């Protein structure tokens, strides 16, 4: 393909322009031909240039006539519906590119917000630099996540009556746990004992106990839950107001 990027402007150098014309004209006609063959459709191309007195055509003068008469038979409104010139064509492409850009930016912002949310959960980011719009978006994102959690909780509570359901949730959480904390040393021994239980309540108690243990033995581990910066109530008491560890983490901006 091309080695250098061509600037999209009229080529002032006569010989360069003529050379480009020859190549691109050939390429264009080839593309029309391919389109016609691959898709089994009628097409034609007409080109007037300062280099040739007669227009360059595809497929042939006869072929062009045929397609043109087919074209002319269509009601004029249909003809113009998808008719473009350079300006309208470029405007359309600009509109499309703008849309794509907008969507990409929106997606990126949501991804960034997600990271911000996660960081706030472990007290690793403050909300100082956020403006009202940021806070609004962050709040929205939190709500979206809460909704999803509620849906999942609902689903699990429905399937927990079915023994099949609870064991699969154990399996799922097992994998989540093991992938989440690769460096936790107590993991190996606790993991085996949890597997024997299928009762949800017992399993959750075990895990809480395990996490507390993890926290106590290794408060500055690479797992990321450093001393005061914990957002999660990794204790027996899930009452957020009473847990001192909890409160510390939720006011990172007061440090």
């Amino acid at each position, binding site marked *: 393909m091309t080695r250098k990027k061509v600037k999209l402007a*009229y080529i002032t150098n006569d010989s360069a322009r003529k050379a480009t*014309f020859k190549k691109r004209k050939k390429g264009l006609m080839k593309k029309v031909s391919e389109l016609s063959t691959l898709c089994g459709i009628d097409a034609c191309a007409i080109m007037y240039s300062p280099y040739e007195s007669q227009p360059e055509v595809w497929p042939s003068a006869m072929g062009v006539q045929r397609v043109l008469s087919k074209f002319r038979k269509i009601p004029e409104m249909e003809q113009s519906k998808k008719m473009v010139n350079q300006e309208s064509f470029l405007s359309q492409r600009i509109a499309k590119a703008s849309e794509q850009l907008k969507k990409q930016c929106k997606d990126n912002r949501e991804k960034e917000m997600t990271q911000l949310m996660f960081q706030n959960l472990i007290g690793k980011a403050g909300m100082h630099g956020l403006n009202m719009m940021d806070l609004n978006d*962050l*709040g929205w994102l939190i709500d979206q996540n809460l909704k999803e959690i509620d849906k999942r909780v609902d689903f*699990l509570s429905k399937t927990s009556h079915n023994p099949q359901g609870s064991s699969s949730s154990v399996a799922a959480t097992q994998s989540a746990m093991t992938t989440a904390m690769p460096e936790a040393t107590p993991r190996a021994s606790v993991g085996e004992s949890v597997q024997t239980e299928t009762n949800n309540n017992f399993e959750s108690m075990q895990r809480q106990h395990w996490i507390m243990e993890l926290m106590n033995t290794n408060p500055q581990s690479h797992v990321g839950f450093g001393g005061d910066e914990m957002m*999660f109530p990794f204790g027996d008491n899930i009452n957020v107001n009473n847990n001192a560890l909890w409160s510390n983490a939720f006011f990172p901006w007061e440090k």
Partner: protein
Amino acid sequence: MVKNNPVQGRRKIEMKKIAKKNNLQVTFSKRRAGLFKKASELCTLCGVDVAIIVFSPAGKVFSFGHPHVESIVDRFLTRSPSVRIFDACYNIVETHRDANIRELNAHLAQLDEMLEVEKRNGEALDEVREAGRRQWWWQAPIGELGSNELQQLRNALLELKMNVGKQAELLQAAVESSNCWPFLAPNGVGTSGFGCEGNEINVPSGTTQMYKFDQDLYLDF
């Protein structure tokens, strides 16, 4: 085949009618757009007049023409050697159009570049997300979490949400106080409340697009 661009999958394709209808439609769409793009470039680069007419597999007609499809079709059919009857006006119109096209091309190029940048940003963010998912349990997909984890995460998020609200209240209070003191905006620039330059106080005026939370704890503009 080496693929440099992740978007364009380059495969050798046989030059005959595509068998699968769906593929055929997709190919038509893409190639038609590409064809028109090439034609547009040729017009700009070499100053030629072109008309291309194609019929879609569904029977709809698409056409591209520079300066217009009509004039080229007429010119071809009437076979008149010279069409530039109104030479003087034609040149003025032409130069205007060329300037316009130059601008449009520049605008499009700029958008394409920005899109490229944002796509790369997106990919980088995806990588961060992936790494996070593997590392922390609460970053894993919600569908993978067990009841206890869900409960913990839920509580954490609720608490965080409350704090977001508190921060929002703080901000609003700050804005309102700066409203009362129009000449004492945060960074000392004399503005009247809204529209001040401080990073932290940047309330869009006429906040009609605010998302309303389920619990109206805050943000009651």
